[in-house]
């Protein structure tokens, strides 16, 4: 393990240059309900301020849930925290091995077998071929695909692909785990199994940042929450408090219920 797994950002901003936007139609910068602020940079290129002045420090044991509107900047924030986007202004330092789970389909080759895809995906996540071969049996077990793993991936259904992706991600030991929503598309029974594995994975990993619209999922995996609005941190704190401010009392009540239920399950 890398010593002192941590993430710290200081006034980090992420501005996307939009080179093909008609600048005339955007004479004035404006703000909408969804999406970041639109402005111009010094060289007169239209920019979208996806994230603005993000200052946060995460250390080992932090499990943060992100809430916010579509386009508020949750996914961009995850990409900032993974090191894909380096801040255009301000700074971000990320220490630790990052495992991002954004799009389960990326890096999958439809023409090669399930086995090969498992190995390639593992390599993408910083594992070696040898490590992946050692985990193969466990992953094959988890995916329940059996001999089907020898078939080319193009013959798989969406659900089967998600199983492979989930199998690989949950088999590695990341220090920083970044989860984006949209891990749906699998049957309920498998999801239950995946959830248990996901929870174990979260326990193993040093830091978790999780963006989801499901408060239930959030309450199950995280121990604090952050509300992202217009590319800024609007509020951070207890899941219940943040959800109350963002969605109202009913949702907060539900979160409290889920947390209580989990506590009951954990204390036999």
């Amino acid at each position, binding site marked *: 393990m890398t010593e002192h797994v941590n993430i710290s950002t200081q006034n980090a901003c992420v501005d996307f240059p939009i080179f093909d936007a008609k600048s005339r139609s955007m004479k004035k910068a404006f703000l909408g309900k969804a999406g970041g602020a639109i402005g111009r940079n010094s060289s007169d290129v239209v920019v979208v301020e996806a994230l603005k002045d993000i200052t*946060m420090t995460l250390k080992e044991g932090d499990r943060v849930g992100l809430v916010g509107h579509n386009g508020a900047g949750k996914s961009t924030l995850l990409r900032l925290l993974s090191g894909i*986007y380096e801040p255009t202004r301000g700074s971000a330092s990320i220490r630790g091995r990052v495992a991002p789970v954004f799009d389960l389909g990326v890096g999958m080759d439809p023409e090669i077998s399930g086995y090969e895809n498992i190995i390639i995906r593992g390599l993408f996540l910083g594992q070696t071929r040898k490590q992946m071969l050692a985990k193969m049996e466990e992953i094959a077990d988890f995916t329940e695909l059996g001999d089907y793993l020898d078939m080319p991936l193009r013959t798989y259904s969406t659900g089967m692909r998600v199983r492979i992706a989930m199998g690989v991600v949950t088999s590695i030991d990341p220090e920083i785990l970044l989860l984006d929503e949209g891990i749906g598309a699998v049957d309920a029974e498998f999801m239950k199994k995946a959830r248990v594995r996901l929870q174990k994975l979260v326990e193993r990993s040093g830091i978790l940042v999780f963006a989801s619209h499901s408060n239930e999922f959030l309450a199950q995996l995280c121990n604090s929450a952050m509300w992202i609005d217009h590319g800024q941190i609007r509020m951070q704190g207890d899941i219940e408090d943040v959800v109350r401010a963002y969605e109202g009392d009913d949702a907060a009540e539900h979160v409290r219920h889920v947390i209580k239920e989990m506590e009951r399950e954990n204390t036999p």
Partner: protein
Amino acid sequence: MSASAIESETPDAPAPVSDSQTFRRAFKDLRDGLNQRELWLSLGWQDIKQRYRRSVIGPFWITIATGVQATAIGILYAALLDMPLQEFLPYVTVGLIVWNLINASIIEGSEVFVANEGLIKQLPSALSVHIYRLVWRQMLFFAHNLLIYVIMVVAFGVWRNLSWASLAAIPALGLIVLNALWVSIVFGIFATRYRDIAPILSSLTLLLFVLTPIMWTTQSLEAQGGAVRDRAKIAELNPLFHYLDIVRAPMIGQPQELYHWYIVITITVVGWVVALLALRKYRARVPYWV
């Protein structure tokens, strides 16, 4: 655990300076990419296997395609330029194989980041992984094409011209690989920002293909004497001529001249300086631009 898990730093702490635009990070990117060689080695192979999946001959279609092209050009131009076929055909073949390597480095190099948009935006890995994968794939193509060379060496008795000096082709190829790397980095970065560069380059390489002595020889120009002879000098201004010659001359056992090496080495050094500067300044911008 509660809100204390996330804490803002004290406002008066000195703001850490971002190190995105430093040489340290540029070198780190190149090094991290090398460390992930298991990844790009298998991806490069897959790219080739992918293209020829379910075909019986598989990747050897690369060999056949180049062989047919070289033979057609060779026979036609040997007649046009009045050159003996057993000399001219190996010349064209080797020229074409090396040209394919250079051409692909320029054209695919300029698309390397755009083509890998999905991976760049989803997985935090070194940018150089995509560069290494591309150059490795070109090397594999080149290796398949070398088979034609081997056949020519035997069939046309080229082996009679080969000597120890022919081994110079190996460091020459090393230089070409080094150049393919910087070309992909520089063109890749700028073509991602300015999308007109890739189409400009593909037209330009077409032009260079005709201007570079692949289908013709500088000797045949010089042999004509007079004004044409002077024009042969202009061919020397084309840098690709020198790249081609340091590989081709040893491979077909022609006399080698040192000044080609000086020119290529100079361009290599300058190119890498530009590549490192581009990596330092724009490496972090590439995910924003793709």
